[in-house]
């Protein structure tokens, strides 16, 4: 363990005390998996800025949370209603409160045949083979200390499995509610998603935190899409303003499968959203889009790595950031076109509006291209709200505030319009106008 990495210690020191109480302890393979993960995490430590991929984001902010020994234990809170964003009865709903599954708040009635939606903790006991298989699917991922940390301590999360050809017509709403009202906590949500050949699902995932409370969420998502599968995955990160949120999404995309992702980040004092996509066969496509709206001293890191491992794969990324006050945004977009990946399409765009002189963006697009027949482009820009447009609107009677809000909304709408499931776009636009109205 690296000497200066003081934040690693509380996690390492708790592992031996806690491991017997973690879900799946009765399964020897699970404990072996956790032990190995802990070993790897201990070796690597929490990522520091000395790592190239963590150059602009410092997890030292975790120290301010003062995670105690109890922090890694479950911290249930009483809550009798989930803050759903979709009208009752129009979606399947899975609710996690402080990381723990709450069947009483969830609504899984009427799931089609061949679709499994449940809690990882619950299934680790009831159907351990299923969980084992899903976890094994991503065991090739190395050098991800936060995923290792997650694997060591994970307790619960969403398990979604679709058999070949199954379609989930309704949206699956996944709600994570967090509150540290009973003490500071850290939890490691693990979501396991596997879509069989030709299957299709839409997830609306949102993370809501009570403002003012401090906690740490370290989420990991393993996503596997078989041939011709489609996953639409739309997320809202609205953690409490003192929270730290890190999430790592690892995806494997088979031939002709399609991943359509959008992440709106508005919460947390410090957040990092890392997506790693492997496009493993011809026709695999991924759209990684998002918006980040930050104010005060918030910090938001968006990191994407797309590996084109096969010919005829494509990715498209459109990110828009709005940074106010002294907030800071980080965008790292890496596209790797491996030698065999001919006829690859990669497009990446990150545009940022800086609302003050003190807001800051660090943007680092990286194209690594080892094939010759490739169409790749990237664009990064940062600027202020267009002065001429502002005057034009104001000269027609709009106040400075509403003129600015309208321009910012329009700026962000360009990324929201990338959301493939169009009926969900309004919901994101509403979240954005709520943010602007504060």
């Amino acid at each position, binding site marked *: 363990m690296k000497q200066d990495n003081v934040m690693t210690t509380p996690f390492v020191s708790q592992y031996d005390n806690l491991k017997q109480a973690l879900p799946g302890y009765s399964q020897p393979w699970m404990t072996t998996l956790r032990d190995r993960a802990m070993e790897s995490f201990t070796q690597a430590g929490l990522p520091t800025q000395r790592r190239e991929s963590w150059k602009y984001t410092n997890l030292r902010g975790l120290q301010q949370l003062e995670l105690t020994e109890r922090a890694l234990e479950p911290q249930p809170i009483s809550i009798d209603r989930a803050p759903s964003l979709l009208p009752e009865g129009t979606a399947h709903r899975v609710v996690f409160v402080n990381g723990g599954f709450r069947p009483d708040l969830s609504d899984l009635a009427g799931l089609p045949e061949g679709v499994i939606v449940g809690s990882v903790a619950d299934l680790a006991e009831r159907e351990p083979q299923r969980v084992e298989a899903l976890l094994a699917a991503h065991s090739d991922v190395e050098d991800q200390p936060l995923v290792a940390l997650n694997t060591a301590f994970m307790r619960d999360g969403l398990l979604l499995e679709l058999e070949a050809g199954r379609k989930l017509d309704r949206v699956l709403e996944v709600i994570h509610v967090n509150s540290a009202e009973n003490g500071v906590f850290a939890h490691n949500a693990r979501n396991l998603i596997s879509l069989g050949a030709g299957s299709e699902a839409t997830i609306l995932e949102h993370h809501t935190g009570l403002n003012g409370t401090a906690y740490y969420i370290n989420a990991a998502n393993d996503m596997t899409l078989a041939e011709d599968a489609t996953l639409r995955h739309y997320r809202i990160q609205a953690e409490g303003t003192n929270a730290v949120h890190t999430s790592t999404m690892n995806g494997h995309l088979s031939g002709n499968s399609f991943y359509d992702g959008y992440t709106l980040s508005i919460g947390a004092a410090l957040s990092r959203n890392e997506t790693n996509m492997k496009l493993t066969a011809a026709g695999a496509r991924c759209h990684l889009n998002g918006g980040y709206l930050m104010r005060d001293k918030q910090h938001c890191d968006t990191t994407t790595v797309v590996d084109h491992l096969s010919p005829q794969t494509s990715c498209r990324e459109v990110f828009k950031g709005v940074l106010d006050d002294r907030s800071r945004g980080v965008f790292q977009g890496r596209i790797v076109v491996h030698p065999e990946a001919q006829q690859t399409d990669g497009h990446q765009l990150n545009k940022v509006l800086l609302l003050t002189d003190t807001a800051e963006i660090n943007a680092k697009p990286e194209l690594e291209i080892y094939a010759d027949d490739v169409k790749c482009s990237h664009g990064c820009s940062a600027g202020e709200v267009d002065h001429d447009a502002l005057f*034009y609107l104001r000269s027609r009677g709009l106040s400075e505030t509403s003129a600015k809000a*309208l321009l910012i909304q329009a700026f962000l709408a360009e990324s929201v319009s990338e959301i493939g499931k169009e009926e969900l776009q309004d919901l994101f636009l509403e979240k954005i106008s709520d943010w602007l109205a504060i």
Partner: protein
Amino acid sequence: MLEIKNLHADVEGKAILRGINLTIQPGEVHAIMGPNGSGKSTLAHVISGRDGYDVTEGEVLYHGKNILEMEPEERAGEGVFLAFQYPVEIPGVTNTTFMKEALNSIRKYRGEDELDAMQFMKVIREKTKQLGVSNDMLKRAVNVGFSGGEKKRNDILQMAILEPSLAILDETDSGLDIDALKTVADGVNLLRSPENATLVITHYQRLLDYIVPDFVHVLAKGRIVKSGDKTLAQELEKKGYAEFTDQAA
């Protein structure tokens, strides 16, 4: 209703307006002509409140109020409207959204009730009909991908919807075909009333055939160097500005 007294304005330390005096009474149409770079747009911008101009001397009163101290949106609320020489493109904001917000902001400023979507659409239908413009551009983003002439027409539609008491047209006629020119003239004439006034900035007599001015002024090097009736415009079209540029130097 508009009194401009000894107005001086600088841009980046350079004197552009150098003592403008101009009074417009309700019901009047004034035309300002003048060589490129003489300060016509600058005058229009200072009246409507664009930033970047330093007023070093003088005042602008509108209905007796000093509007130089007002925000652009307050001036709009007071009834000042500027049709831009170069209307701005605003990606992602539809004309309908923009106009609804604009009209309701102005109504609010005047202490009137805001219109709901239905009432607003009624206004839109009425105005597009009066001006003979199509509804198509309402759904599109403000001026994005519009031709030069369409942008100008869009500004006139905005004017018709907002019903200002003082309309300032900054070369709205430049680059327009005959039909579009008529739309502009219709827009202005629609607003004409004993209470409203119009200030037309133009290089061409053409528009003034449709919007007949009561007064024509020549602006050169930041000053009004000559004023007359509509025949002055015809004279200028023949002789050009050489006489005035020398005189103002």
